[in-house]
């Protein structure tokens, strides 16, 4: 195996495009090294992206927050302005693993590992985040929900690397929230999770709503109908019932020892309701 640590994105793209055999990007390694150790993958080349300057920074730009692909989730939690603008995204990222894992893991690794239960992914989908992908043919911007295509599979092509994630500018009277259900409070993988991002208009009426669910299908899901169900409401009981129904309808979970189909469907309703309520209060709505 060859270990490469390029200094620029361009160098990384060239290495990824030209290297023969099994080439893997290394960010925090908290999925990659576990899979190597388990014998599931045997890389020929590893490209460590942590020495690339542009991938190590969080920048506030006119387009929103640009989060470099090598920035650890722990660092997101220490960034006061980001936390204030996107509390749901940051709380989702901070739920990943222990403090030890937080020191290394990244939201881009979480996304590219393509687990249906990845914690930060529903929050990024609800936030309408874009992955900035660099490859041999230049840059493309991909909505986060288009990165994972199936468990462990992504839409990234040979030579491509995610350089950063762009979170849109946070507007007035808007906020987000993320919640997951796990049997243990720490160090566990979501059985079901929900993210909600809301923008309010006059008198606390919801103008825009984005809802996403995790661990209830082969990839994290954007649930358009659940957003629609609460737009125009002040998140009254009827609106919440409609949101619950839309969440349940969207679920297509597996049945396993961690949660039966019925249980996951039921919890998707509960978490959809609670995440919406929290996002609503964070956006300044009164419940």
């Amino acid at each position, binding site marked *: 195996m060859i270990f490469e640590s390029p200094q620029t994105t361009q160098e990384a793209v060239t290495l990824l495009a030209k290297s023969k055999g099994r080439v893997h990007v290394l960010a925090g390694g908290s999925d990659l*090294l576990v899979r190597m150790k388990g014998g599931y993958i045997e890389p020929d080349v590893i490209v460590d992206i942590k020495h690339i300057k542009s991938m190590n920074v969080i920048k506030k730009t006119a387009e929103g927050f640009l989060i470099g692909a090598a920035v650890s989730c722990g660092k997101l939690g220490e960034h006061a302005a980001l936390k204030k603008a996107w509390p749901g995204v940051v709380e989702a990222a901070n739920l990943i693993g222990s*403090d030890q894992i937080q020191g290394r893991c990244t939201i881009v690794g979480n996304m590219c590992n393509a687990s249906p239960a990845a914690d930060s992914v529903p929050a990024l989908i609800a936030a309408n985040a874009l992955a900035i992908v660099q490859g041999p043919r230049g840059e493309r911007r991909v909505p986060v929900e288009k990165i994972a295509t199936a468990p462990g599979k992504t839409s990234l092509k040979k030579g491509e690397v995610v350089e950063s994630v762009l979170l849109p500018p946070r507007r007035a009277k808007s906020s987000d929230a993320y919640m997951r259900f796990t049997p243990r409070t720490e160090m566990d993988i979501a059985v079901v999770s929900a993210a909600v991002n809301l923008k309010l208009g006059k008198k606390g009426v919801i103008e825009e709503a984005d809802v996403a669910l995790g661990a209830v299908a082969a990839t994290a899901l954007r649930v358009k109908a659940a957003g629609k169900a609460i737009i125009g409401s002040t998140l009254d009981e009827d609106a919440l019932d409609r949101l619950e129904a839309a969440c349940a309808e969207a679920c297509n979970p597996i049945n396993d020892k961690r949660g039966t189909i019925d249980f996951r469907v039921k919890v998707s309703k509960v978490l959809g309701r609670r995440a919406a309520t929290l996002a609503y209060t964070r956006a300044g709505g009164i419940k």
Partner: protein
Amino acid sequence: MALLVESTINGDKAEFVCEADETLMDVLRNRLGLKGVKEGCGTGDCGACSIKLDGTLVCSCLVLGAEAQGRTVETVEGMSDGAKLHPLQQKFLEHAALQCGICTPGFLIAADALLEKNPNPSEEEIRYALAGNLCRCTGYDKIVKAVQDAAKTMNGAAK
């Protein structure tokens, strides 16, 4: 392919040769003799291999040796001041916060990382911060008490 890596380990410049796919945990234990770095699971779940990499708490089983190039590494071997134990080490002994001891180095490093960020943590904060460290023997209570007591001593000394 073997690589030559230079880093600073427990304050001293160190050079080692390792394979590209070798973990930092294996390098520290097998090549540098730092056996205080323990292997419990090898997959990030138990925290026995905890170290600080450029001051950040990480599991060394999920870091490649090659990644230590140009970085600083701190292990339990660097905690005491010669024969004088670090307050955390001293308090772990006084509170009998260990039995078999395999988890102890990891707990000490994780607790040290916590106290650096938060010198006066509540019991709940300690329990959350140490959630990535598993102990099969003690039931955690004595570990939490030892960390609280060490925090008290360290804050007293700082005044």
